[in-house]
């Protein structure tokens, strides 16, 4: 059971880090960026390619992977969101356009094999690969009855520090106040002299950098990088996390991430292996019925 709690905290950190990026965009724009899971995958895939195919050190590759993810945030804003915002399209249009971009990103990586036009990006097609042994120092410790792996243990403080920094920036800095002003009322923010487009671009950059970084940590800790890690492992769970925590709430995403990790593992231990996903989503359903605004969300009300 102790080992299972460690596993829950570790996987919860990944869920939380991924969901923070999700919820940041939702909090500012009221839009679900469903390309976020593709950016999660892209961060891991580019870092892997740089290490294995371009012989870069992990640390250089990691910085470039996060930078590429941040850049993809700009692409999402300029291709999927801004043109629709200009036309005052409803949020559902932006949701669909981000799904489209996610499919294209996944397809591009899937097609990356020797001899194809995407070979510079990725060489393993639909295969699942892992970083070569020794890419990062990763000792395994056995403490009492627990197995602790350095890469998994490290994810926990890294995620917490990143989320604390983000929380601080949002709450106490000029940029954070600007972002919150845009979230509250973009038109009023513009009248007050804020460059709303720039603020939104910044949001997408930060959100995508976090998403890509979460993907890299996932790839290192779980030894699984493929075109499908975003779609299969974190996309729906990320949504569940931000619903649990409260849509748009950063502390909510953090708590929701750890809560989902814990619920999943407890469901496995208490109820049984084939009920794990069912129990986790039953908890989500209960939350929607009993407290639709989530743990940290403001009371929901219709905007008139």
């Amino acid at each position, binding site marked *: 059971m102790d*080992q*299972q709690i460690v*596993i*829950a905290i*570790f*996987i919860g950190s*990944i869920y939380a880090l991924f969901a923070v990026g999700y919820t940041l965009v939702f909090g500012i724009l009221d839009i679900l960026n469903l390309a976020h899971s593709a950016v999660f995958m892209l961060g891991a895939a580019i870092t892997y390619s740089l290490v294995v195919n371009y012989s870069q050190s992990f640390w250089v590759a990691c910085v470039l992977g996060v930078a590429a993810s941040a850049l993809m945030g700009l692409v999402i804003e300029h*291709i999927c969101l801004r*043109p629709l915002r200009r036309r005052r399209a409803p949020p559902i249009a932006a949701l669909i356009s981000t799904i489209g971009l996610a*499919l*294209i990103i996944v*397809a*591009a990586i*899937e*097609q990356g*094999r020797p001899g*194809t*036009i995407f070979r510079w990006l990725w060489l393993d*097609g*639909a*295969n*699942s*690969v*892992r970083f070569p*042994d020794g890419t990062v120092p990763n000792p*395994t410790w*056995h403490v009492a009855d627990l*197995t602790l*792996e350095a890469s998994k243990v490290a994810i926990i403080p890294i995620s917490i520090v990143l989320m604390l920094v983000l929380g601080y920036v949002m709450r106490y800095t000029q940029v954070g106040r600007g972002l919150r002003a845009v979230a509250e009322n973009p038109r009023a923010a513009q009248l007050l002299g804020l460059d709303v487009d720039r603020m939104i671009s910044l949001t997408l950059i930060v959100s995508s950098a976090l998403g890509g970084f979460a993907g890299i940590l*996932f790839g290192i800790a*779980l*030894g*699984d990088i*493929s*075109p*499908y*890690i975003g779609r*299969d*492992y*974190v996309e729906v*769970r990320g949504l569940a996390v931000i619903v649990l925590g409260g849509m748009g709430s950063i502390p909510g995403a953090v708590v929701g991430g750890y809560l989902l990790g814990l619920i*999943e*593992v407890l469901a*496995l*231990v208490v109820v049984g*292996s*084939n009920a*794990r*996903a069912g129990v986790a989503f039953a908890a989500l359903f209960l939350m929607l019925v009993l407290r639709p605004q989530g743990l940290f969300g403001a009371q929901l009300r219709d905007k008139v």
Partner: protein
Amino acid sequence: MKGVRLVSSLVAAVVIAACGSSSPSGPTDKIIKLGAILSITGAGGVYGPQGRDGMNLAVKQINAAGGISGAKIQLSINDDASDKAQASQLAQKLIQQEKDVALLGPTLSNSAVGAHPVAEKLKTPILAVSTTGIHIVPDCNFPDTTPCKYVFRDSLGEQTAIPANIKSYADDAHPKTGVLLVAQDDKFSSDGGKIVQDTVATYGINLLRTIKFNKAEADLSSYVTIAVKLKPDVIFITSLGGIPAKIMTEARKQNWTGQFLGGNGFNTATVSKQAGANGAGARSASAWYLGNNFNSNAEFVAAYRAEYGADPDQFAAQGYTAIKVLADSAKRANLSFTNIAGDRDKLRAAMESVNIDSPLGPFQFTSTHDVKQTVWVIAMDGQGSFTLVHEIKAS
């Protein structure tokens, strides 16, 4: 300008989607049109591309040697994205619109239960190249048990392979206990799990627990922890893609030192490579072994290396063999090239009596259209490849 951008994005998307297809060019009088339905992307994308490469190599060799009695083979590769519905739609399209004389595939058993009944209904031979689940041949319309006339298989079924693997390990090491880790959300994996459950007792192994999981689990360590705490002699894994490697890695990290036994999901270098040193010694029964030096395999391996600059795997060998089987059958079938329905029937009849040397060894079909071949028990070598443990000849 925005319109142009949108159109160019759409064109790019279509080009990306179309990248998986290929077809030889150049008109000839007689063409034998074959359509392969493979999982180039999705969960089966670990296996489909190698099958495609094996098939393309065989087609290239046959056409370069003058074709089949002057007729060239034209093979189209179609990606079912590991999706059952897409596989059956493709089967329908290839038979009715493309007028292919025979089909190959799909890669996954899960997709085969969609595509095979379509081919059977439309009276077109279909040769399964890597589907190892139960109810593939002859009962493709299961639960209807009427034997399907047009469905053949050149891949070693798990009903043969898994018991052979368990028996050989039980004979060698006499394990007493086991735990089964099985993905419950696809046919291949759950069929494999059922076969393990039905087999272990025969060889004196007490199955302590069956642990089911879904493939879309980010972290399998919770499941592995449960398995390892039971201290079994053997962990059986029936799952696809990178999952077996993840389970092995996690179990070794938790200091478990027992034996991994698995199914066809182990049988590609990709999985062995991903498992690395953690997979060393993991055993499975395979339809093929790289190191076999009989002529038909040595020639295939050399040609594949020359063409692709890499070693083939079992799926490449099965794809290659499938084209050779169809070519041999077409040669003996006296095709008319004018009556497609008649040609499909002639080809089907000729396939029943195929008898060739292939990279898989001497190759024939059984009376139920299943493969009759030697079973090779192999073990991961810890470096991305395999070593041969046992050879079990077809009885």
